[in-house]
């Protein structure tokens, strides 16, 4: 088995080498060839245009096309000397066309500015879909701000969180707590990056909101699995968010007021139109509005502050500084009384700072990227006045990446280093525990376009740790097939990869109301969590307005920590290792007409965990790595995030300045464990002594089959209406909406001991107003 795999690896490496040699490094007449590179920005705002299509045609009919990078840059190497036509196009902008005279062995750098286009929205949508279709990659969904605006929210602001939950395979346990499960993975197995900075708790305590308002998002690549070698350290999914830059030409901004959030965004050009500052601030008001609006308390207080400075040092280099700070506090179990907040509460704060430098050498077919970051999170879970737990994680990272663009071949490689510091305290009387781990490694990601039909992307990632585990090696592979070449209406894609996670987050997954997570490095002498992903999918455009896709996947996960039910009602949380198997099929349909959009997705999934009988770990005693000897029965069960069926329907209709949106979500019930009853368990060691049989004992719970039952189904229907107004100096958007319009009592948490049931948010009407500079 091993030999076969190795042989395949050798074959791929050889193929890659041949491609590199064939494409770029042969010493022939190509030495006379030139390079054309450039930067594409918006004339109006000065913003970088990411994903713009750049096409280079020569007189003999050869055509080459690339898309601009996340920094708005493009490059063509080995351009024949002579006359060429360069066309740059981007959705919502007028195309830019120019004829270039290319001299032998020269490098040209172009600064291209596109003018905004007055175009009907419907046409843009269709064009958007075409662009997305060209990028179909198994497991990947690229989210644009336009897509975010299709999801009705209790707010005139859009947010990434709302959209993610419309994707098949993305499961949340409720509309509070900020936990997201992706295709069988758990929240701590998701890697969430903002401009390359890892964010430990990327969602707010109210599940409608992430830490990233739509206004600051340029685009987000969401990998439900099968991600490439440039990503690592998590075993389930990647959400890679690239923030937009501030306006470099003029002052821009917006302010919103809505029942959940108020927000303010300001964009300032500074330093002679080369540098911009973008600041976004949001803070919740729902805790103040809810008593009057809903007649009940919603004690959730949260907010975020984002700032970004972006500047061009030269036409071919740029620097950006990103800052994100968030805070959340609330009692996710609160339903009736706000006073509970004073006692039981969950709170967390993120702090993230990053610096990124990008350089495009004028005379070399490469891009260089250097980034450093600090990211930290503090969280606290207070059960009573005296009893609380706290956890802190900090990471410092350094990243250098090189991108070689060699025609049909791309080579991306990089090195990185990280230091993580963990600090946690598991009770008022417990000593604080502190540990750290440093790691370093590298990756190589390649892309070979073998012909019109087939593109393969092999890669590998390796990482070594200061202690705890040996070096991990994660091979990755992806292939895309267009059966009828570039004009194919059907695309097939597949991905495979092995992933490791040395930094693990431990939380009590059995209890959705306990969002407290301890981050720590995997204990020494214990195998780290790892996963193998396989994904295969198809995407087809049957008509210009109809697109269908289907994707099947499987994730095998090993060495996961999963809590064990304590028989004692007040027992401590203990963990054993389990193996996971997630499999499913995601189906998606999109109808895109001039003024009407509809998207529907269905996910069929099954997640099973298998626990071997053995020794587990007890964590709620000093030392997360403490191994306490206890035996647990072996067995296979469905974990509490195993949602078998999930259906999402989105619809949006636009007429004139009006927009009407609907969203309906359905999710089959999540597993839970029923109770047989309660009894007093006597201390067996005291039985032989006098009075052994009359002792009071401890209250124990007798449980039925592990996760053998299902909670009621979940469904929610949201409606929103928007109307845009244009005034002389400002634009305004008025939003009316109803979340959970059917006032469905969806369950969030049920305490089997007390019978207390906490439902998710009730019917929430909302009125929002957004004022923005035109």
């Amino acid at each position, binding site marked *: 088995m091993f030999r076969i795999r190795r042989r395949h690896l050798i074959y791929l490496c050889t193929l890659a080498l041949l491609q590199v040699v064939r494409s770029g490094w042969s010493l022939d007449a190509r030495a006379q060839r030139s390079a054309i590179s450039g930067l594409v920005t918006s004339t109006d705002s000065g913003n970088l245009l990411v994903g713009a299509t750049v096409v280079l045609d020569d007189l003999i009919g050869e055509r080459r096309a690339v898309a601009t990078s996340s920094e708005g840059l493009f490059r063509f190497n080995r351009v024949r000397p002579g006359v060429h036509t360069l066309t740059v196009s981007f959705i919502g902008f007028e195309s830019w066309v120019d004829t270039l005279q290319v001299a032998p062995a020269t490098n040209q750098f172009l600064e291209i500015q596109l003018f905004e286009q007055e175009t009907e929205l419907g046409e843009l949508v269709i064009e958007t879909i075409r662009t997305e279709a060209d990028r179909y990659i198994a497991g990947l969904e690229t989210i644009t701000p336009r897509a975010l605006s299709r999801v009705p929210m209790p707010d005139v602001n859009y947010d990434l969180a709302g959209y993610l939950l419309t994707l098949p395979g993305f499961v949340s346990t409720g509309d509070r707590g900020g936990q997201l499960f992706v295709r069988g993975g758990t929240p701590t197995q998701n890697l969430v990056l903002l401009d390359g900075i890892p964010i430990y708790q990327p969602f707010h305590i109210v599940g409608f909101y992430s830490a990233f308002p739509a206004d600051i998002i340029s685009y987000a690549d969401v990998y439900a699995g099968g991600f490439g070698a440039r990503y690592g350290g998590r075993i389930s999914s990647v959400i890679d968010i690239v923030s937009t830059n501030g306006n470099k030409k003029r002052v821009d901004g917006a302010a919103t007021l809505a029942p959940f959030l108020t927000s303010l965004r300001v964009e300032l050009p500074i330093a002679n139109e080369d540098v911009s500052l973008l600041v976004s601030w949001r803070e919740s008001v729902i805790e103040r509005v809810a008593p009057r609006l809903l007649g009940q308390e919603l004690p959730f207080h949260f907010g975020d502050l984002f700032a970004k400075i972006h500047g061009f040092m030269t036409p071919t280099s740029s620097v950006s500084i990103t800052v994100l700070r968030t805070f959340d506090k609330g009692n996710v179990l609160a339903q009736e009384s706000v006073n509970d907040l004073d006692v039981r509460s969950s709170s967390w704060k993120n702090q993230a700072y990053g610096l990124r430098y990008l350089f495009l050498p004028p005379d070399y077919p490469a891009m260089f990227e250097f980034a450093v970051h600090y990211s930290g999170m503090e969280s606290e879970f207070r059960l009573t006045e005296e009893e609380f737990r706290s956890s802190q994680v900090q990471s410092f990272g350094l990243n250098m990446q090189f991108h070689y663009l060699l025609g049909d071949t791309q080579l991306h490689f990089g090195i990185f280093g990280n230091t993580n510091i963990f600090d946690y305290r598991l009770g008022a009387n417990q000593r604080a525990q502190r540990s750290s781990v440093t790691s370093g490694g590298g990756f190589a990601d390649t892309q070979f376009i073998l012909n019109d039909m087939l593109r393969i992307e092999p890669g590998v990632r390796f990482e070594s740790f200061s202690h705890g585990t040996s070096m991990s090696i994660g091979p990755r592979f992806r292939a895309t097939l267009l059966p009828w070449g570039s004009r194919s209406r059907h695309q097939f894609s597949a991905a495979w990869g092995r992933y490791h996670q040395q930094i693990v987050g431990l939380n009590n997954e059995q209890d959705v109301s306990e969002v407290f997570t301890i981050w720590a490095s995997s204990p020494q002498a214990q195998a780290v969590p790892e996963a193998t992903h396989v994904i295969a999918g198809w995407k087809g455009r049957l008509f210009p307005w109809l697109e269908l896709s289907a994707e099947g996947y499987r994730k095998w996960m090993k060495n996961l920590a999963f809590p064990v039910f304590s028989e004692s009602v007040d027992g401590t949380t203990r963990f054993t290792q389990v193996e996971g198997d997630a499999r499913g099929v995601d189906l998606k349909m999109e109808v895109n007409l001039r003024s009407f959009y509809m998207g529907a997705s269905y996910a069929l999934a099954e997640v099973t965990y298998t626990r071997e009988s053995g020794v587990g770990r007890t964590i709620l005693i000093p030392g997360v790595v403490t191994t306490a000897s206890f035996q647990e029965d072996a067995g296979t069960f469905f974990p509490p995030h195993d949602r078998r069926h999930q*259906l999402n329907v989105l619809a949006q209709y636009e007429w004139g300045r009006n927009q009407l949106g609907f969203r309906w979500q359905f999710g089959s019930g999540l597993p839970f464990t029923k109770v047989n009853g309660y009894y007093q368990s*006597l201390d067996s060691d005291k039985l032989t002594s006098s009075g052994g049989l009359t002792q009071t004992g401890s209250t124990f719970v007798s449980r*039925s089959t592990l996760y053998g039952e299902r909670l009621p189904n979940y469904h929610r229907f949201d409606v929103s209406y928007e109307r845009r107004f244009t005034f002389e100096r400002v634009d305004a958007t008025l939003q009316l909406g109803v979340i959970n319009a059917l006032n469905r009592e969806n369950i969030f948490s049920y305490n089997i001991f007390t019978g207390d049931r906490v439902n998710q948010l009730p019917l929430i009407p909302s009125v929002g107003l957004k004022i923005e500079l035109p």
Partner: protein
Amino acid sequence: MKRKKYISLVFGVWSFSLLSVIGCENVISPLTDDSDKVFAIHGFLDMAADTQFVRVSALRSAILAEQPGLENVVVQSVDQNTLEVVVWSDLVIELDDGTEGILFFGLFTPMSERTYELQVLKDGNLVATGKTTLPESPPYFAGTPSGDTLQFSQIIVVEGITGRPFEVGIRYEVSRPSEDLPETVFIEYQQDGSNTLGGWQFEVFLKRDQFSVLQQIDWPLFGPPLELRRVSAFVSLKSEEWANASNPDNFENAHGFFGSVGRFELPWILTPDDVGKLGYVDRQGPL
């Protein structure tokens, strides 16, 4: 036109789906309707007792719910070797917290190495069982006494066990001069002892024990010597169920704990010289 029809169809399907789930079940029943496990049993069989006790309780439906009664519940034990059935009687007692509990007692003395099955019947149907096998008498040997005066002692090795038996003691049977009726003195040993190859050993402090014997039968230190009739160690061994008491696997459809305790006398004979060194007159009989 076709497009409009298509949209209408999609909306129709969507609306139907929506309406079909609006009325779906939204109630949770946290309790298992037909659980097999309905009883908790705690107790053990004791070789040293002629009456055996277990505490039986039915599972409660809530933490603070009242303890349900045990109507039509019968507890009996079956000796798996002889298939002898003993039906136990119930007894209401006051527990330490002031509430009432129910004990069942059976009138018999369990035997070493035998397996007993405790059966709980409800309305004549067998609903829960627990099994225990009493420990077997362990092999042992006594070392040669050594040491001077107060340190005069002897090693006893109990084979086939690991760790200290939960009760250990030395029993001396002595008689006063010219009296036939022996008196028994039991000295409890609290020492941890130590594990040895194939067993566990402890040290019997023969000379020190002699002072305890004199004290307990109120005999003068410098009076005529007592007669030593018999010396033996007493060990109490717990059954295997105790090793896995938190997660017992000897129950069917029940929670709690059910084990057994073996009580064993391990006699040996001291040499006449050693008896003399201890200040006794040797009147030991055969083992």
